């Protein structure tokens, strides 16, 4: 069983997939943020590669990308960062990226460097399943899980295909649109997870719009994990803007989301 698959067993009360952008707000603090996520008990850590044109992301993650790019973060430095923290973090680490930086580096180089860095999974945001077969096989050969996104508009046939070819877990998008924190979990979320259960035994992590402990608890009622991205990225932005201790703010936020402490 891969480290990713074992992150979802046994079924626990609260399971959190956390997203941060690599190099946000700068390289040193980004490294400490990843370590803080590990300490706070994030069950899966998604490390986003900053990109100039993040079309699937809302304003919070767009700004994180801009901060990280301005600080010199790239796909190559992201993989270096993962290698640096890998031994100090027990949770599986997933690289979350748009496909163009991967094409520029070269798919083979990317897979080799990801494997050397100790990456457990890769999610290529804008690479459709139809175009993913070479990448999927290359990742598979190095024991890296390929993770697919599904949304409320994904047809049953594509859900089945994602379930058949995906590894580690399936990332379900709770609602139509781009990433971003919301006041409530979308009503389209639970029916999507139920459709997935009919075609897949993979764990399901539900993301987009989750920002509070009560959202996490609600999602845990039907999914295997909740994904928190934009809300966490905003905590980083606020702490950095105030000159506060960014890793400490991240650690406190994750503990709050997991229900371990009161805000």
């Amino acid at each position, binding site marked *: 069983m891969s480290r990713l698959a074992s992150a979802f067993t046994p079924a626990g009360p609260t399971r959190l997939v956390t997203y941060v952008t690599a190099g946000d707000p700068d390289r040193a603090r980004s490294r400490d943020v990843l370590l803080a996520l590990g300490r706070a008990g994030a069950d899966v850590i998604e490390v986003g590669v900053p990109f100039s*044109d993040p079309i699937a992301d809302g304003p919070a993650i*767009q700004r994180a990308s801009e901060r990280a790019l301005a600080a010199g973060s790239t796909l190559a430095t992201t993989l270096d960062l993962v290698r640096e923290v890998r031994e100090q973090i027990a949770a599986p680490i997933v690289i979350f990226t748009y496909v163009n930086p991967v*094409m520029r580096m070269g798919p083979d180089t990317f897979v080799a460097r990801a494997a050397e860095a100790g990456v457990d999974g890769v999610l290529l945001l804008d690479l459709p399943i139809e175009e993913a077969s070479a990448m999927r096989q290359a990742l598979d050969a190095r024991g890296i899980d390929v993770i697919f996104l599904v949304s409320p*508009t994904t047809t049953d046939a594509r859900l089945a295909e994602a379930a058949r070819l995906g590894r580690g877990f399936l990332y379900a998008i709770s609602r139509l*649109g*781009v990433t971003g924190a919301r006041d409530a979990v979308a009503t389209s979320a639970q029916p999507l997870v139920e459709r997935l259960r009919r075609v897949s035994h993979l764990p399901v992590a539900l993301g987009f719009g989750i920002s509070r402990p009560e959202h996490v608890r609600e999602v845990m009622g039907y999914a295997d994990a909740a994904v928190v991205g934009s809300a966490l990225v905003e905590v980083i932005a606020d702490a950095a803007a105030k000159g506060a201790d960014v890793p400490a703010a991240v650690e406190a936020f994750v503990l709050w989301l997991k229900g371990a402490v009161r805000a």
Partner: protein
Amino acid sequence: MAPVDELTTAYLSARHDPAFRKELRDLFTNYVGRPTPLYEAHRATQSTGVRLFFKREDLAHTGAHKINNALGQTLLARRMGKRRIVAETGAGQHGVATATACALLGLECVVYMGAEDMARQALNVFRMRLLGATVTQVDSGSRTLKDAINEAMRDWVANVESTYYSLGSALGPHPYPLMVREFQSVIGQEARDQILEAAGRLPDLLVACVGGGSNAMGLFDAFIDDKAVRLMGVEAGGRGITPGGHAARFAGGRAGVLHGTRSLLLQDDDGNILPTHSVSAGLDYPSIGPEHAWLASIGRSEYDWIDDDAALQGFEWLARAEGLLPALESSHAVAWIQRELPRLAPGTVVIVNLSGRGDKDVETVRAILAERESIAAGGRA
């Protein structure tokens, strides 16, 4: 993928539907003013002996070829039951065309436009608002066409059940490059008939400016199989071929993926998209329609670039020689033929696509020329 699958199914059904085709054809004739003329320029060619024809898309309703595609896609949207249209625009021509088509069909229209483009095309912003469209300013990234597409796509994925995305060029995921080319192919079909009538034979050379590439694909399409017809696309050389200073993808682009299309892309070594620059907002885009990249890769079409200064000279040249004010986008094709005329053999038959008229650019050109005059005056003082 579901939205593009839905769109593909709808388009592939509409394109064979006689009622859909007839409605579009009637609008082309009675609303757009098609066929647009093929005008033979005489003063511009002087004593070169070249026969130079301009395909007058500048005379189409709203002032550019963009209306052909906007009407086609808006009719398709209505057929799909979508009542809300989103579009991106660079120079404002696709935005104006889409706002026009939405007014005609009674649909809601939201146009995304980069803040920088809104400043340099203020007149078109006003035109869109007059036509009832909402123009939304885009302040992210480089604040130009690419960023407007990002925002339009974000809107579309969030509202896909009610909303149709009208993409203005031969870009984006399938079926857009196919669909936009087919809606624009009326340009080449007319030009082919007109040149056979006027010159008695096929042309030797077609010239068109290329941003995303829809006016060029529209002209080229009817001639692809005529191997003797040379196809020339002219890109924006901006301030010259240095990173961030131009939009000439064939002079510095590498294969990559942006906006759901794999094509030539201006990008840095880390795969981030480079900023672009051109005096013309409509050519200011880091990627090129994938069919252009493919035609070039098989050696069927060629590409060259014209910088800002030469494009302005082309603009002035055509104004004085023929009484035609080309759009700054089209001025790149005009400047290319102005430069090449002396090298062409007498008797060569050329069609240049005059894809849009320059009224929208008069203020931009005035400001640039005024700045130059003040610099020149300062230099003498």
